[in-house]
């Protein structure tokens, strides 16, 4: 455990720092003193209103979404034994979006959108994993192709829903799709989902280490592979769905964060899980702060920022992977 201590201290500081920056910058910049006094005393000034009513809820959503997405990515990577798996690339987020959007287009609210997002995520994950499964293993190129094609299919459905929707909610739906956490009230259930998800995966973390070495080896070491896989399927789609409800489809966080952490601390999931949550949260919070400040007063959709970081990273990773293992 102690060998990872420096990393966890760094990640905790990074998380605190990303919150601090998010609290500080914006249309009115706040100093460190203003932030601390707003957080820890009760003087009802403008700084306090800005932080408690605008920046803190938004920062929390961004952080929680980042944590959810990178944890979901990590779980999918174990499930597929492939570092390229990510809820966005495999079309899971878009599937979730389609059903959530359908619910919105039908004028439904609240739990119906949540239920739609969850059903969509589960449906997508089953489709992608089921279709690309051959002879007890997932072939990476087949998997990526299936994911891309299914994502394209969902994309068409999204276009269909958008083109048949009335004008008034359209702009909101569009921004939501691109990944946007503006004007959304924080959903406490997402924070709860992140905490429960983290605890559950931590409880089975060592089994994940064993599972990543293949079904046979895992079974031989006493892991009941099938129930574990089903748990992972459900967890990964749940986490994705909660992220989608909060922020639409934000891409690549689930790919970048676990990969970078593996390079630093190796593949022990007992460390990777908490580290992914902290690092994913910080990265998305920083991205969101960028999204609302780069061309202020206008806001960029969050998905645009993560794609700018994620696409080059993914291409690099793909290239590196296929170099090492051209035909696999």
């Amino acid at each position, binding site marked *: *455990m102690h060998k990872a201590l420096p990393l966890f201290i760094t990640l905790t500081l990074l998380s605190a720092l990303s919150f601090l920056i998010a609290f500080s910058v914006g249309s009115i910049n706040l100093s460190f003193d203003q932030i601390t006094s707003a957080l820890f005393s009760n003087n009802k000034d403008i700084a306090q209103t800005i932080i408690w009513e605008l920046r803190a809820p938004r920062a929390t959503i961004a952080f929680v979404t980042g944590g959810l997405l990178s944890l979901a990515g990590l779980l999918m*990577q174990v499930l597929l*034994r*492939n*570092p390229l798996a990510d809820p966005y690339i495999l079309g899971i987020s878009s599937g979730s979006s389609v059903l959530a959007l359908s619910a919105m287009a039908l004028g439904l609210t609240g739990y119906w959108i949540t239920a739609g997002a969850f059903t969509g995520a589960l449906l997508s994950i089953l489709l992608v994993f089921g279709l690309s499964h051959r002879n007890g293993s997932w072939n990476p190129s087949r998997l990526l192709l299936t994911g891309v094609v299914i994502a394209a299919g969902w994309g068409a459905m999204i276009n269909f829903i958008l083109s048949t929707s009335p004008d008034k909610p359209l702009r909101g739906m569009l921004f939501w799709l691109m990944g946007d956490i503006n004007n959304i009230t924080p959903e406490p259930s997402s924070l709860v989902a992140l905490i429960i998800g983290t605890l559950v995966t931590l*409880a*089975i973390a*060592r*089994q994940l*280490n*064993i599972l*990543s*070495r*293949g079904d*046979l*080896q895992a*079974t*031989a*070491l*006493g*892991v*009941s592979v099938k129930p574990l896989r089903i748990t992972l399927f459900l967890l990964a789609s749940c986490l994705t769905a909660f992220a989608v409800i909060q922020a639409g489809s934000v891409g690549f966080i689930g790919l970048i964060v676990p990969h970078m952490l*593996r*390079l630093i601390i*190796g*593949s*022990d999931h*007992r460390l990777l899980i908490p580290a992914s949550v902290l690092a994913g949260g910080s990265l998305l919070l920083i991205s969101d702060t960028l999204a609302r400040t780069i061309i202020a007063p206008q806001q960029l959709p969050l998905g645009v920022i993560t794609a700018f970081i994620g696409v080059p990273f993914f291409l690099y990773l793909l290239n590196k992977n296929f170099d090492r293992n051209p035909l696999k």
Partner: protein
Amino acid sequence: MSLLCVQNLSLSIANKKVCDSLNIEFEAGQSWGVLGRNGVGKTTLLHSLCHLRTEYSGDIMLQDKNLQQYKRSDIAKLMGIQLQHNEDPFPSSVFDTVLTGRHPYIANWQWENEADICKAKAALDIVEMTELAERSVNQLSGGERQRVSLATLITQDPKIFLLDEPNSHLDLNYQISLLDHFTSYSRTNERLLIMNLHDINLASRFCSHLLLLTGDGHYLAGPVENILTADNLELTFRHPIEQIQSPDRNIYLPA
């Protein structure tokens, strides 16, 4: 009480019979070699013995209790297998890989303790990989990776060791030293060793018992001195075998 007892075991892969009502009592302290031609089902048999494969008829009794009645995690405390293929999709050090052998003994929230770490270190010592402990398994040669697999099994330290072609990729010196380790450890510590081998002469040198699978569902099993004859080997490999007397033991060569 026999450690592992196979009763009327019938196995087939793709309509091809591996064995037809196999009956063997495996006792602690024995070292069994399984010989047979490619594709005869040696791996299938080993996988069935440790319940990685569950399609068979007949009974496999582990310490007088049917294997079907065991929990997966309890089987892993009694039986361990070195598989032919390894998957290492993510970077992981040699030491961490070997330490996974302790998994069956550790509760969900627990971490490996000092004793577990000692066992892993000792196993690395036996396979002479101590210097490469921090190396990533993705960067090993085939023979080094094989030694890591064997070290993982040594760390697991079950009652029954199943080895599926332990010699593959191994240099001559490691073939001898590792087979020597497994057979003498089994003999002195009341363990059972069952291994698939390709080399008749290594089998004759290290095994106390042999199981020959002839490919038509028939088999020959027993102490090595009863089973290892040129005739039986010819029947198994469908190739004439020449037996040469040497001072220590007989040498078998394809004619």
